């Protein structure tokens, strides 16, 4: 009996890896859009490792938080590197998540039977936002403080229960050190644990229903005599090797940014956040992080406090309803009709323009543009059941095309 057998009959580690890597068949036509799932895991690992290292010097009190990070960056060997890796890592994670999400929209990956895979993904996006928001508060710079305040007041806008909830979350009548310390607990322990559990569920769901592919057809419908999908190839070694190429390309871009422009000219780390938090002075311009900017633009576009907050929340949540809104008989944009393609293009354009507008100061022209973009953005979800049912779709092939 080999050592491997001895282990495996007690704890089936190698069986598990065989089952989920060597005997997990992924469609052979997966293209570069399918890199972003494994890249997200890579990025999450970078965040966890750099985060643990940051914890060794960070002190979560209002007096010391800002200074401890400055000390780390100036005096601790490679402290600057770990801090910038963590900050650039947060933005990269959202770049990856948004590409990953767009891939799913393009190839209809949310459609039956992948609804729960999709829902766990939407939850992961929301969790990532909560994690990023609580993390952004920790350096206790000007933007940390005022961003915390603005988001807390969105909760406060809910009638009747809003204010008690706000006080419960921030632990004080205003955003204060108490808030900083509990955000620290959320960012470092609570959210990462939930995030990892959700990643696990996302992967379990993926391995149960299998990957979708650019043609949007089920490879499980075409199995050979051995019970293996004819259009499937084992995930390992085929896709592990392919994903490694993507990982290398990603790391080149990632470290180029970390070394040459870690603040991305204020887009990843705002200038104001290098000034310690001051509860008496609001920075002249409050900008959200770019990945939250589209929702922020929607909040600003609505001239009513409560409705603005509701519109903002529904903008994030509306993605969750896609599996039930899309009535197309086909999954992939390759076989969907012109109307479906145009409406997806409009969604992307409105999302990007909301992102840009959320980062710009609120001038009357920009607010009108944001209102138009918001209408187009929500219009995609509202019109989807009608457009997807009445579009001229073509029929996809039986077997995948390379």
């Amino acid at each position, binding site marked *: 009996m080999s050592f491997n057998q001895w282990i495996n009959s007690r704890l089936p580690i190698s069986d598990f890896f065989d089952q989920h890597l060597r005997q997990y068949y992924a469609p052979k036509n997966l293209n570069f859009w399918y890199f972003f799932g494994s890249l997200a895991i890579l990025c999450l690992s970078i965040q966890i490792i750099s985060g643990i290292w940051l914890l060794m010097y960070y002190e979560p009190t209002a007096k010391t938080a800002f200074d401890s990070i400055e000390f780390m960056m100036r005096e601790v060997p490679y402290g600057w590197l770990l801090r910038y890796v963590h900050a650039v890592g947060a933005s990269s994670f959202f770049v990856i998540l948004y590409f990953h999400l767009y891939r799913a929209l393009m190839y209809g990956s949310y459609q039956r039977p992948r609804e729960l895979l999709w829902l766990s993904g939407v939850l992961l996006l929301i969790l990532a936002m909560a994690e990023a928001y609580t993390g952004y508060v920790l350096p206790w710079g000007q933007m940390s403080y*005022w961003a915390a*305040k*603005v988001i*807390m*007041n*969105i909760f*406060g*806008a809910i009638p009747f229960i809003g204010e008690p909830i706000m*006080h*419960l*979350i921030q*632990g*004080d*009548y*205003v955003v*204060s050190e*108490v808030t900083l310390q*509990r955000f620290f607990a959320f960012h470092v322990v609570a959210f990462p644990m939930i995030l990892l559990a959700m990643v696990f569920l996302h992967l379990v769901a993926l391995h149960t229903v299998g990957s979708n592919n650019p043609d949007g057809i089920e490879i499980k419908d075409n199995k050979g005599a051995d019970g293996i999908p004819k259009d499937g190839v084992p995930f390992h070694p085929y896709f592990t090797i392919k994903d490694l190429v993507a990982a290398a390309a990603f790391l080149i871009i990632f470290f180029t940014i970390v070394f040459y422009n870690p603040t991305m000219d204020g887009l990843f780390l705002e200038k104001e956040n290098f000034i310690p938090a001051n*509860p*008496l*002075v*609001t920075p*002249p*311009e*409050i900008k959200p992080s770019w990945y939250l900017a589209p929702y922020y633009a929607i*909040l*600003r576009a*609505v*001239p*009513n*406090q*409560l409705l*603005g907050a509701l519109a903002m929340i529904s903008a994030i949540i509306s993605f969750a309803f896609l599996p039930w809104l899309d009535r197309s008989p086909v999954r992939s944009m390759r076989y969907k009709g012109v109307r479906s393609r145009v409406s997806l293009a409009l969604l992307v354009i409105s999302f990007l323009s909301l992102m840009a507008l959320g980062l710009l*100061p*609120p*001038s009357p022209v920009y*607010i009108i543009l944001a209102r138009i973009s918001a209408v187009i953005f929500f219009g995609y979800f509202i019109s989807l059941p009608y457009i997807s049912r009445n579009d001229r779709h073509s029929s996809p092939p039986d077997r995948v095309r390379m």
Partner: protein
Amino acid sequence: MLILRMAMGNESVDLKKRAFLTRTSQALGAIAVCGAAIPLVQYLKPGREAAMSSLPVEFDLSGLKPGDQRTVLWRGKPIWVIRRTMEQVTALNKINPNLSDPNSQIEQQPEYAKNPYRSLRPDILVLVGLCTHLGCAPTFRPEPKAIDEDWDGGFFCSCHGSKFDLAGRVYKGVPAPTNLEVPPYYFKNDQLLVIGAHEA
């Protein structure tokens, strides 16, 4: 062993009793979870120290010239004290059709500040310096035409573009829903302002 043999000997199972036991243990479990949640939630609430910071603060008006603005901290919030000029005070009496609540109908001030100046004394304005939209600190822009062509002076919130006049009254068509809040305050004497309490 004796119990086991007795259980095995008894062929009919009392399903009713089993269901009763299942339900009661579920109910008791749920009560226990609720009980455990009480300390966890109570722990999150603002504590005694946070409540202490709500004690009134005093402000000396002698250094405040007409047109000046000062900020005091009360309950962790910035409180503005502004001495308006005579022209600014007279301008407030003019009815401005662009204000959404010119007569302060919505409860955002103590009864004694429910007047065109939204203050006890026409010249001294006391406001909570937080935008009623999402709590940014608006900036004091008294100079006319500073924000746009129609600007008569007031407060501008750079976060989301909300506008308020020199009595903290909100303009129409901006994200902020209500006028700026007036905190409770009174004058101990001519030069001493007490913020955070009504006159006894």
